[in-house]
C-alpha cells in the first residue's frame, strides 16, 4: 500500500501538460519571420483601419499642376507634404495607397471568411454524408482545381463587371461593404462582386481539407459515442468535426489571405477587377506602367505592399502550420 502511494507521488514530479493554445503560441513564437510578419500585418491593418485619420489627403483630391511630384515634395501653397509624391492627376500617392490598402485587405479578408465558410460547409457535408453527393461534389472540386484558375477568374469577373448593374445585391450589403472599405455605395458594388468571384472560386481547397478531416474523424470513438447518444449529423459536425478540423483550416485561411491579396491585385492590374478611380494596389501598379520609363521608382510604391502582404501571410501560414501540426513541417 505504501509503495502504491509512493508511485503516485513519483508521478507528480512530471511536468504538467500545457493548454493546447498556449503550446501553439509558444511554438509560433519560435518562428521569427512569422512573428515579424504578424507584427507587420497588425501595423498595416491598423493604418488602414484609421485611413481617414492617417491619410493626409482625400482619395481623389486633385491638385492641379502638381503632377508627378517626387516623394517628399511640399505643396507650396499649403505646406502639406506628399510623402510618396503624386500621380499623373496630381493625387497624393501615400493617401491613395492607404485607402487602397483598406480596400485590398478588406476584400481579401472577406473573401477568406466567405470561402472558408463555404468550403467547410461543403467539405463537411460531403465527407459526413458520403455517397453520390460526396462523389459529385468532389468531382467538381477536382475538375476546378485542375483547370488553370486565372482564365476562369478573369472571364467571370469581366462578365460580372460588365453586367454589374444587372446583378441583384441587397442594398444593406452594399452599404455595409461601403462602410468597411470607405467607398460610396455604387462603388462598393464592384468590390462586392470581386469578393464573390474570389470566394466563389476559392473554397475548393478548404472543402477538400475539411472533407479529409471529417473522413478521418468520422470513425473515431468520440464521434461514435455522440452518434450512439443520438446526436444528429448537424450537431456532430458543428460540435465535434469543425473544432477538431480547425488547425488545417486556419493554416489554409492564412495562406489564402496571401492568395487573395495577390489575386485581387492581379485582377485589378489586368483591368478586370476594381476600376479607377477607386484605388487598389493592383490598379495603381497598372497605372504606373505607362510612366516607369521616366520614373522607375513609381511601380515600387504600390508593388511593394502587395509583395509584403503576400510574403507576410505566407510566413504567418508557415508559422501556424509549424505550430499547429509539427508533423506537417517540411
Amino acid at each position, binding site marked *: 500500500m505504501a509503495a502504491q502511494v509512493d508511485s503516485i507521488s513519483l508521478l507528480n*514530479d512530471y511536468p504538467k501538460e500545457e493548454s493546447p493554445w498556449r503550446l501553439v503560441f509558444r511554438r509560433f513564437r519560435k518562428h521569427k519571420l512569422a512573428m515579424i510578419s504578424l507584427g507587420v500585418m497588425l501595423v498595416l491593418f491598423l493604418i488602414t483601419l484609421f485611413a481617414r485619420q492617417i491619410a493626409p489627403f482625400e482619395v481623389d483630391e486633385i491638385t492641379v499642376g502638381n503632377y508627378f511630384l517626387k516623394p517628399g515634395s511640399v505643396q507650396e501653397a499649403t505646406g502639406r507634404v506628399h510623402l510618396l509624391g503624386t500621380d499623373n492627376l496630381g493625387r497624393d500617392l501615400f493617401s491613395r495607397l492607404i485607402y487602397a490598402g483598406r480596400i485590398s485587405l478588406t476584400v481579401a479578408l472577406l473573401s477568406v471568411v466567405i470561402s472558408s465558410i463555404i468550403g467547410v460547409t461543403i467539405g463537411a457535408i460531403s465527407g459526413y454524408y458520403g455517397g453520390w453527393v460526396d462523389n459529385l461534389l468532389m468531382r467538381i472540386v477536382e475538375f476546378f482545381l485542375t483547370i488553370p484558375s486565372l482564365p476562369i477568374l478573369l472571364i467571370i469577373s469581366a462578365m460580372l463587371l460588365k453586367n454589374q448593374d444587372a446583378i441583384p445585391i441587397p442594398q444593406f450589403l452594399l452599404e455595409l461593404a461601403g462602410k468597411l472599405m470607405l467607398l460610396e455605395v455604387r462603388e462598393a458594388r464592384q468590390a462586392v462582386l470581386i469578393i464573390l468571384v474570389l470566394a466563389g472560386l476559392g473554397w475548393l481547397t478548404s472543402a477538400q481539407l475539411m472533407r479529409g478531416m471529417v473522413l478521418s474523424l468520422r470513425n473515431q470513438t468520440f464521434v461514435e459515442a455522440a452518434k450512439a447518444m443520438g446526436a444528429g449529423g448537424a450537431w456532430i459536425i458543428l460540435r465535434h468535426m469543425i473544432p477538431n478540423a480547425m488547425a488545417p483550416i486556419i493554416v489554409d485561411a492564412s495562406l489564402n489571405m496571401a492568395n487573395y491579396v495577390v489575386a485581387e491585385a492581379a485582377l485589378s492590374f489586368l483591368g478586370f477587377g476594381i476600376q479607377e478611380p477607386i484605388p487598389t494596389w493592383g490598379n495603381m501598379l497598372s497605372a504606373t506602367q505607362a510612366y516607369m520609363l521616366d520614373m522607375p521608382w513609381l511601380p515600387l510604391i504600390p508593388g511593394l505592399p502587395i509583395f509584403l502582404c503576400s510574403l507576410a501571410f505566407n510566413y504567418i501560414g508557415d508559422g501556424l502550420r509549424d505550430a499547429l501540426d509539427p508533423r506537417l513541417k517540411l
Partner: protein
Amino acid sequence: MKIQNEQPVLTVRNLKTHFFTEDGVVKAVDGVDFDLYPGEILGLVGESGCGKSVTSLSILRLVGVPGKIVDGEIWFEGKNLLSLTENEMVAMRGNRMSMIFQQPQTSLNPVYKIGDQVAEVFTIHKNLPKKEAWDKAVELLHLVGIPDAEKKAHAFPHEMSGGQAQRVMIAMALALNPTLLIADEPTTALDVTIQAQIMDLILELREKMGTSVILITHDLGVIAEMADRVAVMYAGQIVEQATVQELFARPHHPYTKGLMGSIPVLGKVTRRLEVIPGSVPNLINLPQGCRFSPRCKARIEQSLEICLHENPMLVETGSNHLCRCWLYDGQMKSAGDLMEANHE
C-alpha cells in the same frame, strides 16, 4: 552457452549518439558498452525510446541529421568503424554487416521488383552482371523459404505479405554471408504465427552461416526463446547484462525486475500485474543521479540517497552478470542481498 573465451566479433565501447534538436540535445545513446561473440545472439531489450534502435543504427553509422555519434569506439573485424571513411563504411554495409527492420513492407522500395532489390546487393558489392545477380537472388529467395521464388522475384513489395517481405529482407541481409546481422524488432509488426516462422528462420540461418546477431526487441518472450545473452537498456544506457538463463533466474536491476513483473506468467496466479510507475525520462533533461531513480521503488524502500546524486557504473554483480545499480555497489552489496532475499 557460447564460447566466451573467443575474440568478440563486435566490441562497442562508450558509444554516445546525441541528437541536436531545437529543444536541446537528446542523449539517445549515452555511453553504451558491450561485446558480441561469434555465432552468438545478443538480445537488446528495453522500452521504446530507450536507445536500442539508435545503438544499432550507430553501429552501421546510419544515424542521420540531427543525430551524431559524439564519442566511443566500435571495433569490428579489427577496425574501429568510427574511424573509417564513408566509402570504407559503404563497403561494409550489406556486405560484412547488415540489418533488418521492424516494418518489412515499408522497408522495401515500392517501385522495384523484389528480385532486383535482392540482386542489387550482388551488383554493388560483387560487381556481378545483372543476369547472374538475378539468378543468385532467386536462389536466395528460395533459401529463405519463399515459395515459387522464380515467379515471386518479379513481384513488387505491395504484393507480398508482411512475413514474406521480412523473408525478402533477410535474404537481402544475408546475401553475402555477413559476420553481423542486426535485427531491429524483426517480428513486431507480424502476426504471431508468422513471428515464430521468422524467428525459426533466423535461428536456422544463424546455424548455417555462423552469423552473429544483435536482436533488438521489447518482447522478453522473444528474448527468452532466441537470445544467448541479454543486455537491458534504459534511457540510453545498458543497465544490466547477463546470459539469458541467469537474467531470467536472477534479475538484479530494479528496472529489469519491473519489466519481468509486467509480463503474465502462465500458471502463476497474481492479483495484478506489476507496473513500473511513470515513463521513460525526457532524454534532454535526464534526472540527476541514476536515470531510473525517479521510478525506482527499491530506492524508496531502501531509502538510498546516493541514487539521486550519482549515476552508478555498470559493474560485475555475478558470474557473467553486469548491473548498473547502487544496490549492488561494493559496500551496498549487503543491502542488495537483503533485497534479493525480500523478493523471494
